[in-house]
């Protein structure tokens, strides 16, 4: 079966909710990265076979955001595009879709990526308000209209915040932070452990920017519609993050017994990422030098109330499909939804009991070596624009594997609603 080659990729700066990119539409963010990938790789747009974009909450004015943003980016009209949704793994799902199309021989060249503008996720009207409004518009006599108009109460007008809605799992009733609390308690992960991990993330992102490691994967946004008009860097990381400062924060999701704070959780963020993927043989014939190849992937379901353990379910699947073991992996990007959740995975990966009870394996999956984990930081400092993160992990992984000359790398995330996603990248 044809192998998928990663030619190049790029992302926008990841910027905090309601800051510099708040007035840029999600479809524009995605459009920018698609256009930039085209410009950087110099691909003839006529050769593109498909565009796939992952998005957690596609905007109401562009439900198929992939198509809207592809056209904005100058992808020719005959090139089809579709949007995929797998919550936090939407951006990885987009890459997977591309791989499958290439393996099936349905495509040679695919642009895949992910986007989320959490600043632009709308507020909703309460159902009670909606009901009254509908009956008002249907009312015939003036008397009837007045009667309905008089029935509105102040609480009908309070908005329902879309972001909060999206980050709460309807099935188990917990929001994402609460699922992290479940893990923290189950695996006895302390506040200090979590805060230490968060500080590490901020330090690593800061160091990476200082060394210019992110420069290559982050494009400059020229925003004529607002201030500042030039956006070049991520803004979520705090260069002077200390344990003391983090210790002052109150637990947010369980105020009495909790340990998960906004400081050791990922941030709400706006951002997009895209990559150019090709059939390996085609890439060579066209004179491209692939940066890496997709070796395998895996998606698994797990209990929604401990959704953070997703990687521990998905990674072994991808490893098995690749015929590899954890010890073969030289670099790992594990999405930092919550520090507690990352640490819980560290425990689960090396636990024989976890492997026996949940995976039907006699041996543990294998240690996660901190020295090769999220070496340039992660979502706690960079932020987690839901749909974009899956692509961002693979992009960051590929660039760092190139620098370190690694053979195998793993990108993996937990997925709200109880899933795990994992992808193995190789460079040979």
């Amino acid at each position, binding site marked *: 079966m044809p192998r998928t080659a990663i030619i190049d990729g790029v992302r926008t700066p990841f910027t905090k909710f309601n800051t510099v990119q708040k007035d840029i539409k999600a479809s524009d963010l995605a459009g920018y990265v698609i256009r*930039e990938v085209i410009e*950087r790789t*110099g691909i003839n747009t006529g050769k593109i076979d498909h565009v796939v974009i992952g998005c957690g909450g596609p905007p109401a004015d562009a439900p198929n955001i992939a198509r809207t943003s592809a056209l*904005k980016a100058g992808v020719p009209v005959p090139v089809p595009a579709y949007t995929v949704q797998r919550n936090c793994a939407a951006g990885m799902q987009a890459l997977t879709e591309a791989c499958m199309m290439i393996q099936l021989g349905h495509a040679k060249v695919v642009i895949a990526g992910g986007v989320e503008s959490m600043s632009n996720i709308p507020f909703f009207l309460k159902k009670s308000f909606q009901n009254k409004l509908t009956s008002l518009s249907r009312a015939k006599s003036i008397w009837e209209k007045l009667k309905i108009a008089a029935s509105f109460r102040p609480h009908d007008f309070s908005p329902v915040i879309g972001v909060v809605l999206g980050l709460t799992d309807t099935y188990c009733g917990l929001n994402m932070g609460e699922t992290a609390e479940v893990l923290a308690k189950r695996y006895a992960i302390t506040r200090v452990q979590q805060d230490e991990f968060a500080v590490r993330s901020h330090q690593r992102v800061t160091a990476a920017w200082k060394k210019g490691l992110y420069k290559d994967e982050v494009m*400059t946004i*020229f925003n*004529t519609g607002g201030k500042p008009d*030039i956006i070049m860097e991520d803004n979520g990381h705090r260069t002077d993050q200390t344990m003391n400062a983090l210790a002052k924060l109150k637990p947010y999701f369980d105020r009495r017994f909790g340990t998960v704070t906004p400081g050791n959780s990922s941030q709400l963020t706006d951002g997009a990422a895209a990559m150019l993927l090709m059939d390996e043989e085609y890439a060579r014939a066209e004179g491209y030098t692939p940066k890496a190849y997709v070796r395998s992937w895996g998606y698994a379901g797990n209990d929604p109330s401990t959704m953070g353990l997703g990687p521990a379910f998905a990674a072994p699947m991808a490893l098995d499909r690749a015929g590899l073991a954890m010890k073969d992996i030289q670099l790992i990007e594990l999405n930092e939804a919550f520090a507690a959740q990352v640490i819980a995975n560290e425990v689960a990966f090396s636990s024989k009991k976890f492997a026996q009870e949940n995976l039907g394996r006699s041996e543990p999956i294998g240690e996660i070596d901190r020295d090769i984990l999220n070496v340039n930081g992660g979502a706690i400092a960079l932020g987690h624009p839901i749909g974009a993160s899956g692509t961002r992990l693979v992009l960051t992984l590929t660039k760092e594997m190139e620098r370190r000359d690694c053979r195998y790398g793993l990108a993996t995330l937990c997925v709200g609603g109880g899933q795990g996603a994992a992808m193995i990248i190789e460079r040979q």
Partner: protein
Amino acid sequence: MNLHTSFEITETGVAVLKLDNKDASLNLLGTSFLKSFNETLTEVSTKPHVKAMVICSAKKNGFIAGADLNELAKINTAEDAQKAARIGQMIFSRIADFKIPTIAAINGHCMGGGTEMILACDFRLAAKEKVGIALPEIRLGVFPGWGGTQRLPRLISLRNALDMILTGKEYNALKAYRCGLVDKVVPDDILNEYAVQFAEEIIRTKGVKYIAARRKKARGVVELLTDKNFIGRFIMLTIAKQQILKKTYGNYPAPLLAIKAMLRGLSKPLEDGLDIEARLFGEAAATIEHKNLLHIFHLHERPKKQTGVDSRVDLIKPQNIGVLGAGVMGGAIVQLLAYKDFPVRMKDIAGPMVIKGLKHAESLFDDLVKQRRLTPLEKQRKMEKISGTLSYDGFQRTQLVIEAVAEKMPIKKQVLKEVEACMQENAVYASNTSALSISELQAEAKHPERICGMHFFNPVHKMPLVEVIRGANTNDKTVAIIFDLSKKLNKTPIVVKDSPGFLVNRLLGVYLNEACLLAQEGYDFQWIDFIVKKFGMPMGPFRLIDEVGIDIVEEVGRILGEAFHDRLKTSTLPANIRQINLLGKKGKKGFYLYRNNRRKAANPYMLKLLPGSRQENNQQVIQRMMYLMVNEAARCLEEQIISTPQDVDTGMVFGAGFPPFRGGLCKWADNVGLKSIVETLRDFKDLFGKRFTPVEYLINRKTFY
């Protein structure tokens, strides 16, 4: 059935008359076409049972393109012109006199005589997307002579008619509907089918509904005062006349004659009005201004048939275009490209520059939105064509790079070297420069043959001229590609051989230099500006220096001075002013003071520096500046910098605003008489110096053309 027009009669009694000029791709109203049309009208009128007539076009690309200009050009006397007007009027009056209702189904452009034809019909339908209706005669130095000045004000009110006739601007379907010029706007694809249905409706109802609607549109207070009232009309037309005189200094006779035709004709029955119109049309058509403006029209159309080179070359169509430099020029060029839907990549070395370029482009698009020439959505789509960058990423996929960096040769060379490293083998490179040598730029290039100059004039979106500069090593393909691109951008290109100042700046250079010398001789510079404006230039020389920028004028002056030091006496004025840091309009201070981009008053400092108050020898002052340009143009032709006098006139009219009614510099010189110009130059040589020595080319020829 005859040559250009045919008709069918439907079962319901609707005669559908189709216009299809077999001699041209468009429906041009030439003699043979009109004859054929007239005969068809006779045939239709003799058919029994015909209850309505629809006139439509069989051409996909428009309704009627107007009169045949070649025939118009052949008319020399007022009597012949009057006769020609009478013939057209007579045919169109036949439509108006039809007892049955007549309906025009306008499917696209409807110009000049075409508009006058539809005015003679009882009802007009317009296709929604493609229709453009105009009476552009005024731009050719005449006015509508086939009933336009009489029927239009009677239909859509005097106020609206004045707007159409005096500006020549095009009305789209919606605008035409709003003012009552058309009765209904119809989706393009069903126009002709619907026209028959519409005719059937009119047969049934007599169209009372539409006539009432039309009346309602032309019934405001102003209309009440002007359309039925001689005094109101007199006042409105007098105001219009004064405005025109103020703007044109009386240099254009046609609008004044059009106003006269309306003033006299509208108080009389239509028949008498048409008589007056035909007579005045004859007067307008016999003027030299008309001939000159016709010449300008041909200059404007000329590039359409040209490629810019003698050999046949295969053009590449650029898919992606790179622009280097995001300054005022870069931003404006990018906007122009994006407006024409080319994907553009704009690079500059600093983020703030890129954003400035993007914002400049956006502001130009915003202006178009304000003028309703673009919808906000279209603007967005066009802005998305542009992407900014700080690196050369993306330049490897461009087929064409336009460079608009700072006007410094070392910078231009550096940038060229950098971009050549990543350009495609067959991509071409155009440098936007107003004075630097393209041949010198080519000297260190990897592929000198694919490099040429592309001189846009500032402001880019307004100035129609592009000088395509051919360097010593530029090949035909490169010139042809840039020539073709200029046309695609709706510009009027001329090919100019690389030499100091190219064409336009070289001519303007000697002109501005002479103006400065005059001021230094003690002539009042404000007065010079005034008489030059009266001559017909859009602004006087000192206003122009402020507009262009004193630094740039000085730079160009220096280059010209060095190149032509043996004969040119360079004025020290620009260099002196530059030393004291006056920049002109962009720095808010030059010869004049500016606020909010508007001229306020003469700069007191300049009045002190140039205290001269001479206001005499009006004619001689003009001649010194203009004849020097004529002499320099002759030298350019002698040196084969350009190949024809048409090139000179195109350059001067579309690039420097030389008065169109004078037909361009060479045309004007021909009208004055080269012999008398040479004599005057010889006199000037004795009086003012050797720069006035007439060149051989001028001495040896009777005329430029």
